[in-house]
């Protein structure tokens, strides 16, 4: 991870924070984008191993609900407690679910995740007395690291917190990707057999990736719940999971920061289309993603890198900190 990379990310984060500070109406939008970006970052982690989960929203939901229950039991709480409880809940759930799902790959991995998330969804929706049913669980506004804030200050602080967490998560994931477990995760995608034959448990590698990805999603879930004062079953619906995958691919699945670019664009299109072309926002988003997949499969960040990076630069980073070295994904003859 080069210094230039860090500078770019920090600059982008500061710019976003400045936008939030100057334009109050962007705050809700930015918190939503950052929280969904965090969930999409979880998808990026799994995509690193070539796996896609159409059920990842379950961690988004479980952390939001856990934070909500904590808030309810304590009669109001702090955002730090909510984050801690939410992350812990998602980590535990992902460990349990992960022990099952890491045995499977590809479509089976995706399906089993979907199945688990739909079980959670049905439970959240059905057990009205406990979860608030389909209307969701309300939670009062938490204090912000000890400070009790009014709505406007709270929202501003929440945006700053979201941007900071998004930045932190992006950097952390980049460190993780460059580490030996991160490289092993990538190895799952191309050759799990060889991974086993160098003495590494592919399941353990994937389980670690799965828990990490659940935790990043969990942060997003808590932020969104804190923003809305609400955790609802739709957090865990399969369409929500699909949206996360959508965002990850839109931004560029090879780049941790792509998750946030994707989320900003996705939510931007969604809100502006909802405001100016109320009837066709799904249509617009659908066409956007088809265009991206057909014409820029490396996503928006991939497109930007191809446009701006000089050819020399592209050659010069071979060891994967910024993975620009994959040419077109040729199916190797070794994969049969």
């Amino acid at each position, binding site marked *: 991870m080069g210094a230039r990379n860090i500078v*770019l*990310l920090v*600059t*982008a984060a500061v*710019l*976003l924070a*400045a*936008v939030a500070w*100057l*334009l*109050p*109406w*962007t*705050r*809700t*939008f930015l918190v*939503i984008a950052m929280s969904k970006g965090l969930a999409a970052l979880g998808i990026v982690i799994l995509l690193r191993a070539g796996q896609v989960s159409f059920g990842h929203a379950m961690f988004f939901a479980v952390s939001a609900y856990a934070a909500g229950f904590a808030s309810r039991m304590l009669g109001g709480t702090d955002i730090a407690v909510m984050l801690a409880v939410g992350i812990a809940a998602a980590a535990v759930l992902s460990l349990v679910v992960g022990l099952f799902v890491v045995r499977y790959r590809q479509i089976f991995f995706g399906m089993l995740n979907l199945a688990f998330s739909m079980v959670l969804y049905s439970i959240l*929706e*059905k057990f*009205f007395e406990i979860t*608030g*049913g*389909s*209307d*969701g669980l*309300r939670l009062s506004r938490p204090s912000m690291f000890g400070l009790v804030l*009014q*709505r*406007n200050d709270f929202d501003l602080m929440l945006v700053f917190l979201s941007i900071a967490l998004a930045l932190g998560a992006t950097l952390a994931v980049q460190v993780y990707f460059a580490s030996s477990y991160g490289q092993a995760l990538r190895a799952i995608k191309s050759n799990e057999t060889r991974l086993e034959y160098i003495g590494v448990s592919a399941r353990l590698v994937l389980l670690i990736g799965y828990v990490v990805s659940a935790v990043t999603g969990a942060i997003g879930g808590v932020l*969104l719940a804190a*923003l*809305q*004062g*609400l955790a*609802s079953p*739709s957090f865990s619906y399969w369409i929500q999971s699909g949206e996360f995958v959508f965002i990850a691919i839109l931004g560029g699945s090879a780049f941790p*920061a792509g998750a*946030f*670019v994707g989320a*900003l*664009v996705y*939510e*931007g299109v*969604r*809100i502006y289309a*909802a*405001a100016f072309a*109320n*009837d066709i*926002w799904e249509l617009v988003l659908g066409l956007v993603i088809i265009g991206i997949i057909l014409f820029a499969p490396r996503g*928006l*960040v991939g*497109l*930007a890198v191809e446009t*701006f990076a000089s050819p020399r630069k592209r050659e010069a980073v071979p060891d994967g900190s910024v993975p620009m070295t994959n040419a077109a994904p040729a199916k190797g003859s070794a994969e049969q």
Partner: protein
Amino acid sequence: MRKTFAIAVAAALLGITPSGFAADKPAELKIGITTFSSGPASVFGVPGKAAAELLIDEWNKTGGIGGVPVRLFFVDEGAGTQALLAEYRRLVQEEKVAVMFASISSGNCQAVAPLAEDLKVLNYMWDCGTQRILEEGKFRYVYRPQSYGTPEMLSTVLYMLRKKPDLKTIAVVNQDYAWGRDSWQLFSTALKALKPDVKVVAELFPKLGAADFSTEISRLQALRPDVVLSTSWGGDLDTLVRQANQRGLMNQSLFVLPLAESSLERLGSDMPEGVIVGARGNNYFLNPEYKDKPEFKAFVDAFQKKTGAYPIYPVFHMAQSLSALRNAYEKAIKANGGQWPSHEQVADATKGVTAEAYSRPIMIREDGQGLADQLLGVSKRDPKYKFAIMDDMAVYPADKISTPVGKISIEWLKTIEPSMLNLQVSTFKHAM
């Protein structure tokens, strides 16, 4: 990364639209309306939106509100609570709308009410029915110029017991979400207080948006309850009625459907006679006390011309909220010595205002709740219409069946006496 930057800049540029302060009379009065343009609840949202457009077009021809033309902004509640909150905030902070009408969904009302209070924007809850918000919190900016759950359910119980005093068993089939659960809690609490010996034989909560009730209907046929209650609405209610009617369940049990006024036209001949129908207030296009008044007729005709359908209760709810707003503005302008009022002045003036819009007047109490009388009837065929209309109507006075200010509905309903069954009501026959 550069993309992020570009977006940030674009967002910044888009945001800096000059909007100076309008201290005096503004060029236009902006109203933001949240409504369902998509999703199942658009059966309410689309007519509600049409009503707002129809009325505001009319008003703007004659000077709008207080001489200021009105401009409407619509937000789709169907895009989800997240998008709704973001857009709500954008309208208030960027478009600087003076008033928000939000919303249809009770869940959205619960999310929006505290936000309105924080943003200090006047918010009329124009269609949602949950009793919780105004009973559990205190608001300066949040009002409901229309009907709500408690009198709706209580009047339904009263009317049901009037029609079927010997009722022994009841089953409920409600949608599985807050309204379905809350309305059943209100209904069953009232029923227990008024006629404690009625036995509840089944409580079914199929999911919101269920497409098929075959299994539920089989079970109800096996149970044979005297009454089947459903507070469902929209496609769910239509499906339930059609499937139940087709399979003869509606001959076997008395159906009580407090929201069915909004489904009558769509159901056409599938709605049998003899079903108890409610209208969430005093809302009905054949309202016996109003249907012959010229402005009422003109409104129904204009609405039908615009949309091809008769107005249903959300249309009346919208009209009631708009009427309350106009009256509040006029009251505030008067109190302000003819000067354009501040948001706070309009908000405070809403208290005690009366909405008069194609129904019995609705007075807004000091807790923000409007008192809407409740119209109920029994479905009946009239060859003049292709669908069932209401007969044997009764109108229940709101002040007698609403929770008193400062009380919680569920607690209050436990304390009502069977003597309430003798409440004086106005009754009407359908004039063929």
